[in-house]
């Protein structure tokens, strides 16, 4: 019990004094995840719009695959990315294994299906509403997709935030492909796993508080977005 209290109070001190390690790890976490999020959104949001607007032969199958990929265990994604990037693998020459880039790749693969799937759900609804008008105005496919992406931006931001939440809290895949190397690929989740293993609860708890804070911030943002969405304020 006293271990816990000690840890907690030291964790607060670390947070309060903006401990250098703490700041560094948090910054790297954000950098990796925000980069992954930007790339994943650039892929997933247009994909969601495309699936909403276009009727093609493999559409149902594509959606089914997408939904299945949402449930993909991150550890397996890590494993696959590891194999692909390892020296003997097809992309081994790039020397990306155990770099932040490898972690970004893994996170992109994990959250693209999630973001695309949520985006598709929302845009499909919007499309059924817009369908008649946009067909009547003789719009091109690109124009239809851009109308959905623009007018559905709030729902899409919610989709992206969900992706952020998943990516920032992910540990298995980035542990495998990043290697949790100090000052290089150590991020919030992998650091917590390591420090807990070492018995250094203070740092682990402080990192945990940051992670919780980020998760709460994301959820508040989603909540606020949904509310303003209903009120049509932006």
């Amino acid at each position, binding site marked *: 019990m006293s271990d816990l209290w000690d840890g907690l109070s030291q964790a607060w001190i670390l947070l309060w004094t903006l401990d250098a390690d703490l700041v560094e790890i948090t910054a790297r976490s954000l950098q990796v995840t925000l980069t992954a999020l930007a790339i994943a959104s650039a892929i997933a949001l247009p994909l969601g719009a495309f699936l909403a607007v276009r009727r093609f032969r493999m559409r149902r199958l594509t959606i089914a695959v997408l939904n299945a990929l949402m449930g993909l265990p991150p550890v397996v994604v890590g494993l696959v990315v590891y194999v692909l990037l390892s020296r003997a693998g097809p992309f081994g020459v790039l020397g990306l294994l155990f770099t932040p880039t490898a972690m970004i790749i893994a996170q992109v693969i994990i959250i693209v299906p999630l973001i695309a799937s949520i985006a598709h759900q929302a845009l499909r609804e919007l499309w059924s509403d817009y369908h008649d*008008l946009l067909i*009547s*105005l*003789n719009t091109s496919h690109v*124009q239809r997709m851009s*109308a959905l992406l623009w*007018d559905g931006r709030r729902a899409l931001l919610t989709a992206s935030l969900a992706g952020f939440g998943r990516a920032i809290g992910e540990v298995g895949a980035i542990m495998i492909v990043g290697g949790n190397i100090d000052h290089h690929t150590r991020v919030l989740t992998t650091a917590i796993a390591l420090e807990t293993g070492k018995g250094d609860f203070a740092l682990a708890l402080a990192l945990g508080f940051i992670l919780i804070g980020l998760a709460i911030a994301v959820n508040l943002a989603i909540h606020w977005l949904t509310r303003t969405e209903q009120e*049509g*304020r932006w």
Partner: protein
Amino acid sequence: MSDMFPLIVEGALTRRRGKVLVGPVDLRLEAGGVTIVIGPNGAGKTSLLRMLHGIARLNAGRIEWACGQERAREKQAFVFQTPVMLRRSVRDNLAYPLRLGGVTRREARAQADAMAEKVGLGDALGRPATVLSGGERQKLALGRALIRSPQVLFLDEPCASLDGRAMREVEEILKTAVQDGVRLIMSTHNMGQARRLASEVLFLLGGKIHERGSTVEFFDAPKTAQARAFLNGDIVE
């Protein structure tokens, strides 16, 4: 004058899940004037307008505009029975068709503002379209349809949720459009309005054109018993 007419329709029919929504329809429409489509609920008025506009799949027959399919589409506009509101401001809704056509943002805004004034939405420009009332929505849809100066305007019960005054205003706008050479093809449940606007009437029943005549002919001396019953407000078999 418009080079789109005559519009020739032969054996045109649309089906949905095996059910015939409207057709087969044979029809020849000339330039100028106002064609009003009337008939009981479910008669196929909406389906007919959609089919003529080319947004319902044609399962049989043909619909041919004198200027060719491609060019005809650009010169038509449609006001839906349930207006579609883009999740944008009233101004951006009005400007949208212009923006699609490559009009600059400034020019589109200027035209949108003028159109809003015309349809009586001048003080709603900045409001999100989704908060508009039913009547305001119909006005917005009408303005958005007129803004690209179409040569043919399809209207599916454009005054269904308008009060008396707004209806007169909309009718004035439509009359002006007709004077400017716009060809109206419109459905309505309001017989007074049909009399005021129509130059000819299509009476639809069971997905087919049951009777066609000039306004005077149709209202004063309907040829079929069903049209008589409909005009009397009786149940039409």
